[in-house]
């Protein structure tokens, strides 16, 4: 192939690549821009510090503190529950069994399937279980359903991270006489801690932003939940319901709520990156 032809091909692809990057970043800016512009008229301190007072959805005073705290409680609870389940699973398939045994392959397959399940199916399944157990729409029901949603995301991400821990490290630990549990906890876990935290925060971000899983399970309320059996407002649903009133001012508040939610997720992902960078000092390169 002539050199000119090769150079030309490179140029074409460079243009395509730059265009693609432009499309990706451009669409992000468009979305953020639209949300921020529509949110500005309604963004004020009241929105984030007060719960809806009477008639909030009809235009009167108040804010979305109920949804902010409700979402934070729910996503935190769900993430915690998911961590308690995901971490042992991810550790097990990487340290106890070697990476490619049939068992590990099957577990990974199941996780892939769970990852692909639409969140509405989790919501439907959660509803069935709730009716079976006699639970009402509540913070607890929401936590259980969202934990189900987060489990595959977290386990998969943790798995990827733990996989990167070189086998030599685990072998060295074993040769020093450590049990498999000790190796798993003291060596592998510590080595992959930054990645694990990132996985947790990614799952948190996904859990807090999902509407379909909480639509039938967490209920909604204008109050901040004080117990697990009370219904909890969530930001995605608050956005939905505020969009659903006939009053234009309230619809503006929906955009403000969307901005708040996006901001929370942004802060969480920034924290994830900062934390993982800090913790990278403690790992063995």
């Amino acid at each position: 192939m002539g050199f000119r032809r090769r150079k030309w091909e490179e140029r074409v692809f460079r243009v395509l690549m730059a265009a693609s990057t432009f499309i990706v970043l451009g669409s992000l800016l468009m979305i953020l821009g639209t949300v921020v512009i529509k949110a500005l008229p309604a963004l004020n301190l009241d929105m984030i510090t007060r719960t809806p007072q009477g008639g909030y959805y009809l235009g009167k005073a108040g804010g979305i503190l109920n949804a902010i705290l409700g979402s934070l409680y729910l996503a935190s609870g769900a993430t915690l529950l998911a961590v308690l389940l995901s971490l042992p699973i991810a550790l097990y398939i990487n340290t106890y069994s070697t990476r490619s045994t049939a068992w590990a392959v099957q577990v990974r397959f199941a996780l892939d399937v769970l990852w692909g399940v639409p969140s509405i199916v989790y919501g439907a399944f959660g509803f069935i279980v709730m009716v079976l157990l006699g639970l009402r729409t509540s913070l607890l029901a929401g936590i259980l359903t969202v934990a189900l949603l987060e489990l595959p995301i977290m386990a998969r991400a943790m798995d990827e991270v733990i996989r990167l821990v070189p086998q030599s490290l685990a072998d060295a630990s074993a040769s020093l006489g450590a049990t498999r549990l000790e190796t798993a906890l003291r060596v592998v876990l510590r080595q992959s801690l930054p990645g694990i935290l990132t996985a947790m925060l990614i799952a948190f971000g996904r859990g807090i932003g999902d509407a379909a899983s909480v639509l039938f399970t967490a209920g909604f309320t204008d109050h901040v939940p004080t117990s697990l059996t009370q219904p909890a407002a969530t930001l995605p649903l608050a956005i939905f319901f505020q969009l659903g009133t006939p009053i234009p001012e309230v619809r503006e508040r929906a955009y403000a709520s969307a901005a708040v939610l996006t901001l929370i997720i942004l802060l969480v992902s920034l924290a994830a990156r900062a934390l993982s960078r800090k913790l990278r000092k403690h790992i063995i390169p």
Partner: protein
Amino acid sequence: MRLLSALPGLLVGCILLGLLLKSRGVLAMQPLSRLLFSAAWKPLQGKFGLLAFLSGTLWVTLAAMILAVPISLLTAVYLSEFAPRFVRSLARPFIDLLAGIPSVVFGVWGVLLIVPFVARIAPLFGASSSGYSVLAGAIVLAIMIFPTIILVSLEVFTAVSRDLRDASLALGATRWETVKHVVLRKGAQGLIAAVVLGFSRAFGETMAVLMVVGNVARLPHSLFDPAYPLPALIANNYGEMMSIPQTESALMFSALVLLLIVFVFNFAARLILTRVERRIQ
């Protein structure tokens, strides 16, 4: 710990079983072929044909993938191989941000901007559309899955060792040729995994698509026709479950079909992946 690692498999089994049990009603009423291959969805008349919804899901997901995969891969290659360092470090948090935007926001934005956009360009292609269409759903979905494919691809490219690239360049290949023949080939398995992940994410998205796709229970014949994907059916009709007999069963059956599609898809993807892996080895 071994018991806990059985949890994912158990969960899949439980959900499968639960949905299957709840589907018994409609399965007893209608032959499976009618459920899957009839386009008539009229619960009050006892008709639960899912063909229109299966077709809708397929149209939207495939269109989204056709839009998303080239753009995402090209962007990932650019960021990884060609972009100056400051662009790369700037773009990373931006893409994380895109990944974090909740689906409700995408749906709202889609209704505000994408639906009128599609309505406006439809006449250019000789169609008349309200904007609520397969194309609108595909565009919104594609943007939603950009980060998934890009971020995984970036990880894949970082894993390809520097030495290989340097060797290729030393042999006189251009940057792009290095990418084409070395990086992409080495990373092929990971890239396929990235695309599979993107597909799963697109397939499972409910709310954003629901808001822009038109929700008309008919087989779409063009990108500008409205469609009714299966997750949207469940979300929209959840309320009818208690009222019309067998509707609950039909919706649970729809959820079961979704789960089975995800299952089969992952199975096929895994087969392809192992074969690619073997070929690289």
